[in-house]
């Protein structure tokens, strides 16, 4: 294994949200106070990661319209909400597609309620909606999900904080160094600029990387709208010269 010739572009910690971001109150007691210890030179432990091509997925794992329906045998029961296709490409910082990588997502239903035993929000569960999906990117790094647009919901932070509609997105990439969990927001949502979690980012350009864009060309007439959400993971570099 020639891992030692490989490295990843440094993660820009000023681009990502800081650990301590007091406007998002839960960070206050959960943020380390000590500096991160830099590895300086990554080893095989950091340069490798899991490959999920042999993980057996269900036929509807990426189709949230169908993967929790109450009565699949009868072909009945669809979730309430705006039907959407969420799709995009996983590429690295040099624009190179990341093929066969695991993309997972989870979300609230159209009323803003999660199917989770701790979510007690007033809005009801949808009997036909689970809110979880997973898929592998194809050869060119593309992934696709079909789902409904999640609703906004209130949460205890400021006296009246609301989360914008969002889908949680998790991507592995080629190594544990590229591991990333983010959230996709919906273009034009007026709650985005009000959200304390969005505000953990200091750079407005960084917020733009989390906006799913309405794509009319990929929408299906008389069926569903499409939102495109490309993911960029850390770029892989090769070392061409010996270390002496």
């Amino acid at each position, binding site marked *: 294994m020639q891992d030692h010739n490989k490295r990843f572009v440094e993660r820009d910690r000023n*681009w990502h*949200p800081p*650990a301590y971001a007091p406007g998002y109150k839960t*960070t206050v007691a959960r943020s380390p*106070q000590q500096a991160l210890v830099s590895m300086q030179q990554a080893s095989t432990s950091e340069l490798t*990661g899991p490959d999920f091509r*042999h993980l057996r997925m269900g036929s509807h794992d990426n189709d949230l319209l169908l993967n929790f329906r109450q009565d699949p045998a009868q072909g009945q029961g669809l979730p309430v909400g705006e039907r959407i296709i969420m799709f995009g490409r996983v590429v690295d910082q040099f624009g190179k597609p990341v093929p066969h990588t695991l993309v997972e997502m989870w979300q609230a239903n159209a009323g803003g309620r999660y199917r989770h035993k701790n979510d007690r929000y007033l809005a009801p569960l949808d009997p036909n909606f689970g809110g979880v999906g997973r898929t592998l990117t194809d050869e060119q790094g593309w992934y696709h999900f079909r789902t409904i647009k999640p609703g906004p919901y209130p949460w205890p932070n400021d006296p009246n904080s609301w989360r914008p509609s969002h889908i*949680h997105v998790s991507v592995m990439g080629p190594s544990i160094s590229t591991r990333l969990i983010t959230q996709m927001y919906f273009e034009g949502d007026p709650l985005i600029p009000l959200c304390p979690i969005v505000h953990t980012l200091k750079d407005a350009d960084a917020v733009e990387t989390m906006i799913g864009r309405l794509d009319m060309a990929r929408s299906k007439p008389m069926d569903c709208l499409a939102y495109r959400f*490309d993911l960029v993971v850390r770029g892989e570099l090769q070392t061409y010269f010996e270390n002496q």
Partner: protein
Amino acid sequence: MKQPNTVPASELMLRETASQTAGPYVHIGLALAAAGNPTRDEEIWNEMAKPEAEGEHIEVVGTVIDGNGDLVRDAFLEAWQADANGAYQPEYDLKKPFNSFGRTATTFDHGSEWSLKTVKPGQVAHPNGQPMAPHINLAIFARGVNVHLQTRLYFEDEADANAECPVLSRIESPTRRQTLIAKREEIDGKVCYRLDIKLQGEGETVFFDF
């Protein structure tokens, strides 16, 4: 198309998508049973080693504790480790006796412990040629954690290897190195290692950037 050599090199590169917290309901997406939901045929979870896997079978457990000393009950963790021979097995396949990757979560019940069923990893070489002490790489995700935290778990009974490990030695404070050393326990004849992860304050766990 841009004319070559006319813009700073950094502008020719894309920025990484920004990180956001995994939130309080991470379980519905990545730890379905912990959310109280039905699981799919194949889930990525905490049984990294089946009984037939080669090596010393161990359980690794711990809690996650916040800056107030309270349990973090909604943490989600990912583990990445070498097999007993010191080789990473990247190909994740539930049919194999051992997988290098695993997932676990703290729980909403009393003890709120995460746990991994695995084998003790062998040594892996550092690029400088020295062996690194046996370790498990851990990533911690939770509500209130904006970018996942990365740490390593080492083993108490590997004192000599730990003393020589080039990564542990990167930690300037010897006191802080101790925050990564899991304590060996034996419960009903089974070997168990415990590492409580402290996110903040006294005894704060060392977290790495790489």
